[in-house]
């Protein structure tokens, strides 16, 4: 009823090609962004620390992987390792230049990740599909091995782990134990929104169209004059950049210290789940996917005890595994194109409501 585009005329090509052509959508986005910021001041620590911050960080990683897998069609299982590169790079940078603001280093560490991404992306010219996925596994395991075998990376700490030092922004601590959940949440939120906006501009622009052409049929794209190697490598670079920033945020703004096992293959898989469940080739889908894959187990774990259902912690965990597995299959059967597609269908129905067509 309220979701109508009646009376909204498009008078230029630009407005016709806008990402949110309908006024209600634009209002909706603004409301959601404001609500997200307000949440930072109202929600309790558990919601911020255990749910919202990691959700946003994983969303960013999922966007990164979506650029590679969803938009360019290159399947990668090395996400965890690329996140790790970001985290370790950020740690080294802030060790050497403690004076520079940590947020600058969090963003800058993405470039290191991008560089590593390009190196491991080189085989993508010759290898495709699942073969490429397994090739990226080589990156995953090799980098994971480096994270623990090169003590220089973790400053020769006996614990072989990154320890996050306290850093401040305008005198307010943003990393380390004294940083409040609110501060960290607001920083993560700002970075994620800014990078989502950038990603949206990239994928809707010339570069994004090149990527999609390569995804849909690389030989045809080549014939049209798109140079495959630079395009694919660019996708690897941008994707790894996003993952690297996500990894740096993961350690500096969430965990506050990490062993190399944090960036294990399971991390890569869970990001891949988010992308596929959320919807390949959709930024919004990355948000949905991260919400479902990350939040669902938490809700499943913490709801039964709250409702007073007496179950053992381990049993809850087992059932959580079963339910998550079953839900993945269920969602794939209901809508193989991911939650983003479901959302689109819902919007379409809403537009013509109460009529079926």
């Amino acid at each position, binding site marked *: 009823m309220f979701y109508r585009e009646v009376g909204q005329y498009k008078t230029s090509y630009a407005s016709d090609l806008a990402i949110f052509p309908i006024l209600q959508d634009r209002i909706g986005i603004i409301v959601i962004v404001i609500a997200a910021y307000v949440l930072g001041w109202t929600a*309790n*620590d*558990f*919601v911020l*620390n*255990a749910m919202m911050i*990691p959700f946003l960080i994983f969303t960013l990683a999922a966007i990164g992987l979506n650029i590679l897998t969803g938009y360019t069609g290159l399947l990668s299982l090395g996400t965890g390792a690329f996140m790790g590169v970001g985290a370790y790079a950020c740690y080294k940078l802030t*060790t050497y230049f*403690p004076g520079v603001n940590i947020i600058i280093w969090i963003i800058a560490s993405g470039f290191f990740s991008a560089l590593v991404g390009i190196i491991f992306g080189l085989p993508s010219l010759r290898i495709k599909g699942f073969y490429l996925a397994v090739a990226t596994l080589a990156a995953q*395991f090799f980098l994971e*091995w480096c994270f*623990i075998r090169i003590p220089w990376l973790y*400053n020769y*700490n*006996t*614990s*072989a*782990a990154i*320890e*996050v*030092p*306290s850093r401040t922004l305008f005198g307010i601590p943003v990393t*380390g*134990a*004294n940083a409040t959940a609110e501060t960290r949440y607001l920083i993560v939120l700002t970075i994620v929104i800014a990078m989502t906006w950038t990603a949206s501009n990239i994928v809707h622009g010339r570069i994004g169209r090149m990527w999609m052409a390569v995804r849909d049929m690389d030989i045809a794209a080549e014939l049209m004059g798109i140079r495959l190697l630079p395009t694919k490598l660019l996708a690897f670079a941008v994707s790894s950049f996003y993952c690297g920033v996500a990894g740096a945020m993961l350690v500096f703004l*969430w*965990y*506050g*210290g*990490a*062993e*190399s*096992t*944090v960036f*294990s293959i399971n991390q890569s898989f869970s990001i891949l789940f988010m992308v596929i469940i959320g919807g390949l080739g959709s930024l919004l889908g990355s948000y949905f996917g991260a919400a479902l894959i990350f939040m669902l187990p*938490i*809700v499943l*774990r*913490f*709801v039964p005890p*709250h*409702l007073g259902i007496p179950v*053992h*912690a*381990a049993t*809850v*965990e*087992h059932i959580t*595994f079963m339910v998550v597995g079953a839900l993945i299959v269920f969602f794939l059967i*209901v809508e193989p194109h991911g939650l983003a597609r*479901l959302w689109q*269908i*819902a919007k379409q*129905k809403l537009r013509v409501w109460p009529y079926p067509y």
Partner: protein
Amino acid sequence: MRLKYLILGAAFAGLVSVDALTTKADAQDSIYVPLLTYRTGPFANSGIPLANGMRDYLVMLNERDGGIGGVKLNIEECETGYDTKKGVECYESIKGKNPTVINPYSTGITLQLIPKAAVDKIPILSMAYGLSASAVGEKFPWIFNPPATYWDGLSMIFRYIGGKEGGLDKLKGKTIGFIFLESGYGREPLPLLNQFAKDYGFNVKEYSVAGKEMQDQSAQWLSVRRDRPDWMIMWGWGAMNPTAVKRAAENGYPMDHFVGIWWSGSDDDARGGGKEAKGYLSLNINGIGDNYPALKDIKKHVVDTGKSQVDKEKFAENLYNRGIYNSVLIAEAIRNAQKLSGKKVVAGPEVRRGLESLTISEARWKELGLSGFGAPITNVSCADHNGHHSAYMQQWDGAKWVKISDWIAPMKDKVRPLLEKDADDYVTKNAGWPKRTEPCDKSS
């Protein structure tokens, strides 16, 4: 239509979860003891007996004595799956409920919680694991890792080896192999091991086992066969241990020259090797078997009444007893905290004081019905959050563990300087590390 149900379902789930997450814990008339445990995941084989032991002892206190000092314990397990991510979730869900003490049971989770402990005023008890440097109470007032650090463990192993060889100086020119899980935990003893190598003139051969290769290890043991080390020392965990014991036996390595740290000494670890594993050694900090009055009480009040999750035949196995040991420390710290603060219902800050002046004398062990179960805890103080207590050597006789040595004291003079250096290092690297402000209680 399908879509409508989906939306309805999602809305309902959302409502339920919002409701569930916003409800706060009830007012406290009990002492809240959260236990971070892992009964799932690749390390479950070590996690399950530990979880059972920790839980059952505390449940027994509730059943037999009505809690501690007349206050019931509210015991809650949170499953971490040995996964750092879930560890954070657990911590966040526990934090607001006035926890007495947190047992992370994973080095990764411990490392993450160390900076948070001081801010949230929750003491962390990482019993004989975690960051060794946190033994320095001046720098880490909220972290406790009694009874001994990994470096103590290594020095005790060397005392044992020295005893067998007729003096540590006899190690000159010999080769000692070190097989370890490729992680912070496994790499931790390396600095001290290398220092020992320099001091006593032996060679070190390192064999690292990646987490993914835990169940294979054939290349590592082939190298052992080539290098023929005179002694093998193992820092393993989870599925790595039984496989290593099996491979050692298969490769004909003399089992009585193969020594594991206390985390490599569960019954399952050696049992897989069967008769061939006979002779395998491991350090231990807790008593073995069920021949203690307190364990009989656990059997009577908890296991036989069906309140435990332990398999009857796995009752009182080594890691189960390790869990009990951990819970004894918790319980005694709470008791001590009640005494110090005069309050009945204690929480983090009081228990921190309780831990800091924790004493379990030989007589007290006996009173607890656990005579000789652990070395007397006498050295924990404000400055020393570890105490560097003794452990003993146990040997697998083909079917069960047998105690084969007296309490072995660590080489505190070698370990402590390294710890202090490491703690200083930690503090310098983490610029802005808070200075200790907590006052110091007299040891009780």
